[in-house]
């Protein structure tokens, strides 16, 4: 069946015939409670040479659809109906052996999380070469050098060194580039990129997406881009497919979808995407309580934190994670620390919470010097300063009931008796808009957004003066992000709590913060109010961060993808 018949001449119904044509695809997962449908009757076309984005929240079935194409579903996943035409084949009918000639060779996959998607015990070069070896595109002798060439194409600066390294020796962005190298090595016609950048910093995200776009333009590769971020889709895709609850609710050219969304769900998605809403003033961020005349709640003066790097045998190198950082935070206010991973923002927060000792400098809490607070003093500080972590999936003890989770700080400080603590937990749940019945449930039974609400309730249990929020919404879906941010703002207005808000995402910061400090390499490069920073960014790095916010391009006439 290898006749030279082109698709155009066979069907000829459209100007461009789809490279990938999905019709009526239904996928379900077998669970203990019976089969659960994940994808229901999806139709989807991917045209050659284009970037098609599939957008939706987690649970919308977008990732399942992407994986069903190359039949890489979880063991309990099953394609119930539908056809997936790719070239001349229907992928749903291929045998496992036939599929292996498609996977890697004709369809490449860029996975979601670069930190776990490379084999930790194999060299990067080996892992790229493997694709070429599997498909007989290189011999044992030529594969290593070709792998290096592919790593170079994927945008790695020193591909020869990189090929000899192990995954843990590379940064997240470099790992994702290595995975892109794996995906493009065999020059496939189609690349499926499953949330390729959601685990990366914004600036790195931009570089990676640029790289993908560059590759598609240079080699004419078609891309199916799965993302929860409409901003990313707006920047990179020619066509957008919006999915919700296992179904396609809207599909069309990117511009049309963004400017004239037909479906209510698309409109909702557009409204909640932080990157696409220009200067959406978070409705409830209080501006009046800014009483800067009184003494600040937190004052950090010239804080320095150094870590010793024991790797170097001869001289002992040190790393300055926090370098001469000073700021003040007033009651009822939110200060956002913005920067990439490794910029020192988390370490700064740890200094404020006295989870780590500064090498130099002072930390004042409510006027008292807590720089060297130990024992009772430090414990008192714990009571007044609480923390909300980034990952609500990991920060709640899976064996605790929600009631136990929320009352734990109360028990730790021996506040009240059993009954009054439960009353407090109920009140807190009400505050974070969760039903009282949540009390007896386990974290695993809740969604990510609900879990983060529980984490917030726990942080508020002791009525603290300060809550440090470490990337509190970056693990959540966009629409849920907006709800959690609104909740945080509302709680601040009610209780007067101050937030130290850590984020890499300027779009999120704009919605919640009063003051912003931009950090890079341990230093604060620019600080000011949100309005100042967004309208007149002074530092070049701030401008870079602002430019990296996805979705910025669609405002300009960016129908042509060749604007780079």
């Amino acid at each position, binding site marked *: 069946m290898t006749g030279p018949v082109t698709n155009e001449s066979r069907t000829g119904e459209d100007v461009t015939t789809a490279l990938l044509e999905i019709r009526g695809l239904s996928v379900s997962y077998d669970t203990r409670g019976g089969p659960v449908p994940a994808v229901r009757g999806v139709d989807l076309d991917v045209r050659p040479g284009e970037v098609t984005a599939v957008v939706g929240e987690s649970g919308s079935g977008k990732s399942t659809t992407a994986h069903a194409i190359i039949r890489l579903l979880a063991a309990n996943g099953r394609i119930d109906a539908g056809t997936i035409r790719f070239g001349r084949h229907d992928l749903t009918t291929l045998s496992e052996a036939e599929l292996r000639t498609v996977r890697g060779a004709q369809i490449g996959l860029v996975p979601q999380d670069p930190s776990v998607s*490379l084999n930790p015990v194999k060299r990067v070069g080996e892992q790229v070469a493997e694709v070429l070896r599997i498909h007989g595109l290189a011999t044992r002798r030529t594969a290593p050098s070709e792998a290096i060439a592919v790593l170079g194409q994927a945008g790695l600066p020193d591909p020869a060194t990189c090929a000899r390294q192990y995954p843990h020796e590379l940064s997240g962005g470099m790992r994702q580039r290595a995975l892109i190298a794996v995906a493009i090595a065999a020059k496939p016609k189609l690349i499926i990129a499953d949330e390729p950048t959601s685990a990366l910093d914004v600036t790195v995200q931009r570089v990676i997406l640029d790289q993908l776009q560059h590759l598609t333009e240079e080699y004419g590769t078609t891309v199916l881009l799965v993302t929860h971020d409409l901003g990313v889709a707006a920047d990179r895709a020619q066509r957008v497919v919006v999915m919700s609850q296992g179904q396609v609710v809207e599909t069309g050219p990117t511009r049309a979808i963004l400017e004239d969304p037909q479906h209510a769900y698309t409109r909702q998605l557009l409204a909640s995407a932080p990157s696409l809403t220009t200067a959406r003033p978070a409705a409830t961020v209080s501006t009046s309580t800014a009483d800067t005349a009184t003494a600040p709640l937190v004052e950090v003066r010239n804080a320095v934190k150094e870590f010793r790097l024991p*790797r170097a045998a001869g001289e002992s190198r040190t790393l300055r994670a926090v370098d001469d950082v000073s700021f003040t935070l007033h009651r009822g206010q939110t200060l956002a620390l913005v920067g990439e991973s490794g910029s020192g923002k988390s370490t700064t927060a740890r200094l404020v919470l006295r989870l780590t000792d500064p090498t130099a400098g002072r930390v004042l809490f409510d006027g008292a010097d807590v720089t060297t607070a130990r024992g009772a003093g430090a414990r008192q500080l714990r009571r007044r300063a609480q923390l909300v972590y980034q990952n609500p999936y990991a920060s709640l003890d899976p064996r605790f009931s929600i009631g136990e989770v929320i009352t734990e700080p109360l028990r730790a400080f021996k506040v009240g008796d059993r009954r009054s603590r439960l009353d407090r937990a109920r009140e807190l749940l009400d505050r974070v808009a969760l039903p009282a019945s949540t009390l007896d449930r386990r974290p695993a039974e809740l969604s990510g957004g609900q879990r983060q609400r529980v984490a917030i309730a726990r942080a508020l249990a002791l009525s603290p003066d300060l809550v440090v929020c470490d990337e509190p919404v970056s693990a959540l879906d966009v629409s849920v992000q907006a709800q959690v941010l609104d909740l945080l703002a509302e709680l601040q207005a009610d209780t007067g709590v101050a937030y130290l808000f850590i984020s890499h995402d300027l779009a999120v910061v704009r919605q919640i913060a009063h003051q912003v400090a931009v950090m890079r390499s341990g230093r604060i490069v620019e600080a000011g109010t949100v309005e100042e920073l967004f309208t007149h960014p002074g530092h070049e790095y701030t401008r870079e961060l602002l430019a990296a916010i996805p979705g910025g391009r669609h405002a300009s006439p960016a129908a042509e993808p060749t604007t780079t």
Partner: protein
Amino acid sequence: MSRYVIKRLAQAVGVLWAAYTVSFLVLDFLPGDPVSAMAGAGADSAEIDPAQLAALRHQYGFDKPVLVQYADYLGRAVRGDFGDSVSTGRAVTATLTDALPQTLQLTGAALLLAVVIGGGLAVLATYTRQRWLRQLLLSLPPLGVSVPTFWVGLVLVEAFSFRLRWFPAFGNDGLRGLVLPAVTLAVPTGALVAQVLAKSLLTALDQAYVETARAKGAGRWRIHLRHALRNASLPALTVVGLLVGQLIAGAVVVETVFSRDGLGRVTAAAVTAQDIPLVQGVVVFGALIFVLSNLIVDLVYPLLDPRIVVASSRKASFA
């Protein structure tokens, strides 16, 4: 790397010292002393001249204060001298080194069988797509762990020596004589290897990098052996290091059942006779073998897992 080795060596010495000290204390607390046990062999101890006993005690140093005895023995033990056996009068070190080769043969063969059969079982059980076969294979390790070693030995002897007459039932002669004892000893050991490896293989096959490999077009066999197995072998390797201790303990039973000479039988005899110097020698010797095998495991680790060496310098990592 060198610092890693030095650290591990220092730990090994510490473990040996602790083994010596603990065994010394335990033996000291036991009622009766080896001299009365020795003298009482075959006769009522009341009939023996107390003066003679005292002289013997003096000869072995049992009349000195415990701490002095301890210091004395430790000082000599460091130089490899564990004194003389109370029951035979031979030097403890010589007795042990004579018995060692037989036991090393036995445990070495058993370890090899355990790793090959246990590992093979785990790979097969996790590879097969036949549900019943997987269930069957995975139910073997718990069975292997739970049946007593001496019973396995007796059954094997009954079947292969008395009925089929393939292998000798006892003795130390040659490779044929090694088969049944080695298999007997390998059963519980291999079962543990299989259990741990199967579990970690299933975990490894669930990892994201396996999906990456599948997306490359890799076949199941390639994914199993080249991607999952190497990652899964790390926990299994730890278990193998620990199993060496179990093998030495198992040798006591197996060597008794099959009437083989070796460290195990020396141990059994020494304990029965309350031969304190010999028991101490056995304990320290066993600890030495255990420590050495775990040292080897520790040194192999970085070869299998490139992250290990770096891990020691990672403590100062920051968020």
